[in-house]
């Protein structure tokens, strides 16, 4: 009984392509957010979603190739993304103080 359950489980095991498709959907959602939204914080959300999709692909290939380098690079990527969020939020707070607004279309002084 248990053996059969385990075999069924392994037959139902998700493939690499499933993880890739989830990652592709997340990247597409992130690009939609970057194009359609004008709120600076929401654009930061979109960037986070895209970075996480990239990490998912790295770890999925690391699992498939039995190579630890994918997971190592994913760890680096997570740390760099944290730094990027800190600087991005600092910039948003400065812009908010200057313009009383976080709509990127209203940031006028550097417009070409």
């Amino acid at each position, binding site marked *: 009984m248990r053996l059969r359950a385990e075999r069924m489980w392994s037959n139902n095991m998700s493939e690499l*392509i499933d993880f890739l498709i989830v990652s592709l959907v997340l990247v597409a959602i992130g*690009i939609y957010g970057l194009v359609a939204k004008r*709120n600076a914080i929401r654009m930061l959300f979109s960037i986070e979603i895209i970075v996480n999709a990239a990490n998912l692909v790295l770890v999925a290939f690391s699992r498939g190739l039995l190579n630890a380098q994918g997971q190592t690079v994913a760890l680096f990527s997570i740390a760099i993304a944290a730094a990027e969020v800190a600087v991005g939020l600092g910039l948003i707070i400065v812009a908010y103080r200057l313009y009383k607004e976080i709509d990127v279309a209203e940031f006028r002084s550097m417009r070409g």
Partner: protein
Amino acid sequence: MADPIFIAVAALTVGTAIIALEARELIYGAVALAISLLGIAGFFLLLDAPFVAMFQIAVYVGAVAVLIIFTVMLVRTQALFTTKEDKKRKGAGIALMLIIMASLGALMLSSGLNGQFGNFGGSQTVNFTQIGQLMVTYYAPALIIMGLTLAGAVIAALALARREDVEQQHERAD
């Protein structure tokens, strides 16, 4: 086909990612983003990478999500609720999203990645001691540079968010 746990985690992650961008109030969007990042950590657990999953929970859900929620609370004004949405931009965004999904999805499904790939789903997994060894041998310079980058980014964020007018008031009071 995929197993039910995978489908549940995928639905959670993608659904909360959409909510994060579409929620009316930004604070709900921030909470939805935190749940989406937790879903990614669930994927890492499904991929037998518990170390990366714990790192993801600690850094993203523990630090980044809290940082974003605090910022949203700091910037909370009327400006956040009056969302000036461009119908044309939204249509263009959805069209671009569908084009990317269709073209890259067709490319992936027609490539050799469709089907059994390498050791995927096998019993053998990457041991996290291998990650530690890589970090102190081959990737040691990268690790040092990453530490410096993190320190620089945190100092830069502090310098950016500093308020000079308040500090001058304090100096005058002293």
